[in-house]
């Protein structure tokens, strides 16, 4: 059974989990409209930094080559 594909984030403020995808609903009226590097927690409104893509890629690369 396929699980939700959205990345799960844990809010740095309230420690609740949310889907990165769901954070976008909070950005509807922002100028950048979700194009920014922040994911707003749908529970408390805190802006969480999204980890940069290149860091994710680096992490997977390191993982692969560490073995």
């Amino acid at each position: 059974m396929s699980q939700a594909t959205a990345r799960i984030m844990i809010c740095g403020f309230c420690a609740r989990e949310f889907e990165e995808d769901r954070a976008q609903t909070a950005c509807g009226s922002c100028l950048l409209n979700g194009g920014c590097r922040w994911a707003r927690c749908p529970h408390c409104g805190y802006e969480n930094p999204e980890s940069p893509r290149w860091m994710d890629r680096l992490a997977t690369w390191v993982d692969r080559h560490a073995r």
Partner: protein
Amino acid sequence: MADGRASCHSAGGTGLPADSSRLRVALVGTPNVGKSALFNRLTGRYVTVSNYPGTSVEISRGAGTLGGEQVEVIDTPGMYSLTGSSEEQRMVRRFLFNGGADVLVQVADAKNLSRMLSLTLQLVELGRPTVLAVNMMDEAVRHGIELDVTRLSTQLGIAVVPIVAVEGSGIEDLKRAIIRGARERAPLPPVYGNGVGTAMRGVGAQLAGQYPIGTTALAALLIQADEEAIAAVRRTEADGGEQVLMTARRLTETFDAPVAYKIALERQQAADDLARGSVSQSRPFGADWGTRLGHALARPSTGIPALLVVLYLGLYKFVGQLGGGTMVDWLERVLFGRHINPFFERLFLGIPWEPVRSLFVGEYGLLTLGVRYAVAVILPIVGAFFLFFSLLEDSGYFPRLALLVDRTFKRLGLSGRAVIPIVLGLACDTMATMVTRTLETKRERVLATFLLALAIPCSAQLGVIMALMAQQPLALSVWLGVVIATFVVIGALGARVLPGEGPVFHMELPPLRRPRLSNVVTKTVARMQWYFLEVLPLFLLASVFIWLGHLTGVFELLSRALGPLVRSLGLPPETATVFLFGFFRRDYGAAGLFDLQRQGVLDVVQVTVAAVTLTLFIPCVAQFLMMLKERGVRTAVAMFVLITPIAFGAGFLLNLVLRSVR
């Protein structure tokens, strides 16, 4: 999932059951709550896995026997909320909307019930028979969590059954509850507070047709302008839904924050209330060291001293002395002073036209000033600050800070919730101004915006000021005292001037955590990357403006105009430039001040006065634009007009006081 089982993949079949006489039971829940485990318990040997029509989302179906009755059990993808735009969420929404299930069974993790209940409320809104299966009771018991099933069941208006899916306990009770639920009347929809609840009821009351989902859920979707819901209303209502759609549209426009977000918040609040009423932790707090520390940090008697220690070590020692002192020193003196700047100067020596050369190198050059400020002054300071910030964040300190200051904040017309924008303001006031949107009342939003603009220094400014005064702890305390006093006094005055009710705030304290290195590093890097992608271009732009200003003489003119003001604070004329810089970017101004102090132009009193004035001084251009956007022209301009005299007035008084005591 079903190893050894017959399974068939049929992309795009009808999806819905061929034999509709059977009772259809759908399992719904967040990921990792044991949905698959329960599905296996309820179903027999044959399971079909197919794609839901028109999607790539897989859905499993199996036959089961409940109370002697043959039923179909459907497993849906794990999700936190039905509203959302992922393919899975859209699919589940469509599935429920089309009446794809007769009974909904939400599988929930007993250890995190408050996080699960907002989805429960969404399901109850649908107005279908619903059962809440509280799974992982074995682990909950081990954690000392007690659940008042009867109370929760009464409050939700649905059956609540504790189970342990992996062991099979509670499954028979659950089966009975499902059969009973299918026969009984559907639950009454939850009633929400605030504007959202009223809006949902208002829209719901205007719906006359028959729908496969409850009017509360439909109303919520309509207010969120959900296309499928609108289409259904157009099809079903006698007048084509004109009336109700207009009401919904009007309501959508009256909410200033995104409606989806408002509704989610309201649901979460209701969920928290439910959890508070029916879940308790029997094991006494303080059983372990971590929880005891966690509570001590939130209690004023111990929390305030702890906060001071944190600020002293983190901001003063780490950001100020190490980042702003040692590291800046090396970068400035060695890297830029000995290597980079001379290199650029040599490079541009060949250019005969002086103005062009001065654009790049020289006192206000793009390379020698803009890049140097960004890399040698701001980078180490901001880097150290973000590291400190991310460390606190990852340890779970911020919610404790929220509780700690809640009482003080109430006097300022703010709730503990306002700690979020205020804390974020210490990173970037512009972003924080945007976040004030999440506050409940307009009054609170205005007050928070004002205080952010007035008394909250942003990360770079804070860092530079720490560095500026790292050698003079006394001056630093004066600066801190004056800024905090301004924050409190002006805030209290503001709360008096703006009438309205004090906000209420409740927050569950998540546990204190041991920060993880990888988290802290990732968050720090993410913040720094954001900062530099935004800041470096602006630094360069500001450098160009300043160069232009010099070339045309406008800058001298402005500086001279500011001259008397600056002199009245007892500051040398050069500081006028710093205030001008400060308008382009807060940090830029602070960096300028830093430069002046290192050149030995300023004495201690002057540094303190300048730092206080600059901190309180008008926000940078970006923040001001955000204020315009969020609070409107009139409010933003009024704040601007108020802040300037407050800043200079405070500087003026401080100068008088400090001169006289000296």
